[in-house]
């Protein structure tokens, strides 16, 4: 285990060090201490590393992550794991706005609650939230899966494309073009697998969720739908 003290060595050295670890390396396990809400911690990592951040993070922790498993032992600020390509990001606490925004792959696990716009414009990422999510989550979500064990706020899945949303609790309101859909066996199997990977297999059963997706009525601009925009 390599320990990196952010307070003494600074952000630039941290990211430079992690970026240098391309391909095969024996330095696969990292612990970052004294995070103290710093922004842009462990961004742009592109190696199969196992990184634990001790403490809470500022904006964009694990942004554009590829391959790495990054665990935040605290809360995460806005835009955690934004545009993630692959790998895993696990937050032990809560996440602020835009968690997993535009994520294109990999798995984001939030063990607490997520604020507004969780999974905004997601493009293939899987997101599992053990708690609840705020308003406008999955706005313009293109693809990927979002699993919420708690409740969802207003306007869930507004202007949704092909992402699948699974919510166990209540949904305050659905956004434009987002509807409840039938939960078929294939979805239950997918959900079981997502819950397991999201470290939530012991907390909920697939049958307890409802599925939401796009009505696909806004896919082609039609002036008769203007009131929906």
């Amino acid at each position, binding site marked *: 285990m390599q320990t990196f003290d952010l307070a003494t060595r600074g952000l630039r050295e941290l990211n430079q060090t992690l970026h240098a670890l391309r391909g095969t390396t024996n330095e696969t396990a990292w612990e970052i201490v004294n995070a103290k809400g710093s*922004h*842009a911690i462990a961004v742009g990592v592109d190696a199969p590393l196992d990184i634990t951040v001790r403490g809470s993070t500022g904006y964009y922790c694990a942004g554009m992550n590829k391959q790495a498993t990054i665990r935040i032992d605290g809360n995460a600020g806005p835009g955690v794991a934004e545009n993630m390509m692959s790998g895993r990001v696990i937050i032990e606490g809560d996440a602020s706005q835009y968690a997993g925004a535009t994520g294109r792959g990999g798995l984001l696990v939030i063990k607490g609650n997520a604020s507004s716009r969780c999974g905004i414009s997601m493009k293939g990422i899987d997101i599992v939230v053990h708690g609840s999510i705020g308003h406008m989550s999955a706005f313009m979500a293109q693809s990927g899966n979002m699993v919420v064990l708690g409740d969802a706020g207003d306007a869930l899945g507004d202007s949704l494309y092909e992402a699948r949303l699974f919510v166990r609790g209540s949904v305050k309101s659905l956004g434009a073009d987002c509807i409840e859909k039938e939960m078929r066996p294939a979805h239950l199997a997918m959900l079981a697998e997502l819950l397991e990977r999201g470290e939530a297999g012991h907390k909920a059963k697939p049958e307890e969720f409802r599925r939401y997706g796009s009505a696909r009525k806004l896919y082609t601009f039609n002036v008769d739908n203007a009131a929906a925009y």
Partner: protein
Amino acid sequence: MTDFPHTPPRFSATFTPDVNAEIRRAAATGIYDIRGGGAKRRVPHFDDLLFLGASISRYPLEGYRERCDTSVVLGTRFAKKPIVLDIPITIAGMSFGALSGPAKEALGRGASAAGTSTTTGDGGMTEEERGHSKTLVYQYLPSRYGMNPDDLRRADAIEVVVGQGAKPGGGGMLLGQKISDRVAEMRNLPKGIDQRSACRHPDWTGPDDLEIKILELREITDWEKPIYIKVGGSRPYYDTALAVKAGADVVVLDGMQGGTAATQDVFIENVGMPILACIPQAVQALQDLGMHRKVQLIVSGGIRSGADVAKAMALGADAVAIGTAALIALGDNDPVWEAEYQKLGTTAGAYDDWHEGRDPAGITTQDPELAARFDPVLGGRRLKNYLKVMTLEAQTIARACGKNHLHNLEPEDLVALTIEGAAMAGVPLAGTNWIPGKTGF
């Protein structure tokens, strides 16, 4: 019976034939007009300015003997690897999706041959463009279509797009006709749907957030790449100041004549300001912050000739960008296709339904048959020629003003032909010492 003279038919200056036609079109369809391009209305522009040239108090440089440099360095503030261009005329962002792959290739070929950069656009980076662009600027847009860290790292600069001149405050729409298999795959969308581009970034709001976003982009790219911020011409003084505050290396300022692939005509014609009105305010902001020439300013929106380049630079810009003019150089709206433009209900020079994907010139289309009409090698050569001509023209003017570098052009070299031009550009009305709003009037 006396034959009195009749009052001849008189059209209203308010309800012109064009206005009436649009009212009828709206009444028939129930939807606003969508089109490509920039503002078509007459606005104060570089045509309203003139250079004074040399006189007894200024002496010129010999046109065919004395040097007049044109190079520009972009990104000197923070980037480890600033961009150096041979000419200060760059190619503005235009997406693969809006343009065909071969058209993007031609832009890369022409720009590289002329020693300048191209810019990606909404929809991601294509191999055609990366492969043929010596210097490629990667746009970071609200939609983040195709965004990935590998392309970020293989770009030569990053342009965070906050807005564009044709539609400051607006998003975009790529109609289903242009969402081919390849475009759909790059944007992670179903084929054939109307694709919306968001008007705001999904993970930051306001200048304080933008500063942190730029920090993230710099960290991901190890502080190597110059970071541009592009804004539409709306509040240029404050937008430029905030861009500097947020950490930009370069500010890109796009006036309302700057084109778009598609948006509402009412938006294009009624939102934003002409580039002439924007440049002095942006330069003033840079000067007030002590950052003029340290944070570089690229301006765009209606740049057509070397005279426009020289005028923009005399007002304080470090470089310009061209979009519409580059497409015309490639062959867009060429009268050679007039018969086909007629079939589309338009005429060469006026065709602006780029979003429909039926471009006879094969440039703004994803239709394989139409795209095959366009030769990227020839197109690249035409663009190179055009860029060289613009550069020669700008040099000709600069030498006449006694300047050995385009950057040495200054507002004192200019006068305005119109009061509006004088007020906006902050230069005297020709034949007077009157700068409206500045000299006591």
